[in-house]
């Protein structure tokens, strides 16, 4: 579904990504891993045409991403926010309409009920806590059954209960056929959810393959141990 070929990205003469190539297969959960500043978010932004790559190709279903194209993408970015002065329901309905959801108001109300925000429909989003806002943002991402779901640290800052709830929601989206790219620093999530992964270091693929293959390459270590081994000494 996704092909990244010889991708290079340079900002102000500083090369952040060098000759990166990988694939994400349809229907899999793919872990995009690396320490802070390793180029994960840059890769996703270039894939979604928010950055113009210095060199190489980043394709979704064989074409560069276009918001007007048929492919439905749900993206929970690292830098996330909502319209502060708008109500939760108005914000979700707006995004639902943009994503072509048939009944966005009903869908949003059901989702908010499910994530414990049923009483917050008419609250302004600025009144919500960070965690509550994150639930709204995740709802916006998964509405209209996206074919491709890109989640940049989706459970950052969540307590274990809400983290489990969100992982269940992500798992459901996957079961409905969504291909998922997940950026996370929680290695237990990678081992439990991901089919394959790539570890970026210094803008290059340090390790790439199935979870099993990567673990095998590092002598059967856990992903937590692998992460420390690969990025040990890197400022977290």
């Amino acid at each position, binding site marked *: 579904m996704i092909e990244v070929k010889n991708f290079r990205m340079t900002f102000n003469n500083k090369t952040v990504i060098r000759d990166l190539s990988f694939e994400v297969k349809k229907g899999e959960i793919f872990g995009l891993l690396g320490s802070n500043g390793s180029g994960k978010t840059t890769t996703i932004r270039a894939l*979604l045409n928010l950055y113009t790559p210095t060199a190489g190709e980043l394709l979704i279903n064989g074409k560069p991403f276009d918001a*007007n194209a048929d492919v439905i993408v749900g993206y929970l970015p690292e830098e996330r926010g909502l319209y502060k002065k708008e109500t939760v329901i108005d914000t979700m309905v707006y995004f639902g309409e943009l994503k072509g959801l048939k009944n966005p108001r009903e869908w949003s109300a059901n989702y908010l009920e499910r994530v414990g925000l049923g009483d917050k429909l008419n609250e302004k989003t600025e009144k919500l806590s960070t965690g509550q806002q994150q639930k709204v943002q995740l709802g916006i991402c998964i509405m209209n059954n996206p074919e491709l779901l890109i989640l940049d640290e989706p459970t950052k800052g969540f307590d274990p209960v809400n983290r489990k709830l969100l992982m269940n929601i992500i798992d459901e989206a996957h079961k409905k056929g969504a291909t998922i790219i997940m950026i996370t620093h929680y290695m237990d999530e990678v081992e439990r959810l991901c089919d394959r992964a790539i570890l970026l270091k210094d803008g290059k693929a340090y390790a790439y393959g199935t979870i099993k293959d990567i673990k095998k390459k590092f002598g059967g270590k856990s992903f937590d141990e692998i992460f420390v081994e690969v990025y040990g000494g890197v400022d977290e």
Partner: protein
Amino acid sequence: MSKVGIVFKFEAIRQLKKPTFWISLLLFPLGIFAAIGLSTLNSVGIEDYLTSPELGDKKIGITDSVGLVKEAPAELISVADEDAGREQVKNGELDIYYHVADDFATSHKITIYDRAADTGLFNTNSFLIGQILKSSVYSKLSPEDIVLVENAVEYETIDLDENGNQTSVLGQAIVPIAILAIFYILICVFGNRLTMALVEEKENRISEMILTSVSAKNLVIGKILSLIALGFLQMVVFIVPAVAALIIYRDNPAISGILAQIDWDPVRILGNFALLLVSYFMFAGACTLVGSLMPTARDASQYIGIVMVGVVLPLIFMNNFIAGEPNIVTYILSYFPLSSPIALMMRNAFGNLPPYELVLGIIELGIASVIVLRWTVRSFQKNAINFSVVKPHFGPRKSWKKF
């Protein structure tokens, strides 16, 4: 509904929900009504000076040893001297007492005694004696003399064109200048909103998420169109009450004077209206362009000043547009996109814009609007997730080919 339509609806409703929008929307029309209403209330016709002012139920006394009041109203009570007048006010026998100074010819002084408890914050007792004195003086004058003294002569200037036909330079300019004024009001009211339209996407950190649901082009166009539509709503809200006020207050001497002067020149009026439309599009593009380049509202507000300076620059050179042969300054300001709206509208209002220049100006502003709007789209696409100030690059660049 198309994505542009969805953005349009969302943005328009958001603006309509803001109290500040309604305040700015209604401020100008209400201001006009209030101003005209007040001028009507304050206006004093010549005939008012020929009748004595109403003194009402008040007991008013006066000591006028120099004989200022030649024909005193019957209700005015003559008092022997200042001490007696002061005492009568104190005792409540008089509400107001006026003492004309014995040396009035040199001191010009009238002392007013009244009870502090009756006067309140705004004391109108000096106005009352002024009216009494004026009526007294004017009662000796003929109506014609009063017109002269009051400087109330209604001058009628008949301008003749080169063929000897009657024309009116000011009369023909009134409506086109009113259209120019509407443009000014629009940019004052909507300049900031237009700039903030894209800044807030970045400030709220929502741009990255929304650009996977809608293209930068559709988002920018939807936002700009919604604000342009609201601008036209502002225009209607401005024009309709203004026309209503003119009809309602048509008997007011000031208003009837203006109405009598208006010379409806359809070419100039339609010309300025066309300039207003393309100028507003161009201005909307310029404001949103600034918004697309800046990361925060604070940064944007600093740079929007550059756009505003360009727009108001022609006012400094107003004389160049009103009369005389056009010079190099006239042409530069007429065709530099930011200054051209005001320059062209002013020249057109005063009949100094040949038809071919009017057409050229409309085309130029139309092209400038398209270029600026496309630049805005590209800039927003490029800078939507850039959260630091972007220095605009004005030099030649490869990306220009993409326009």
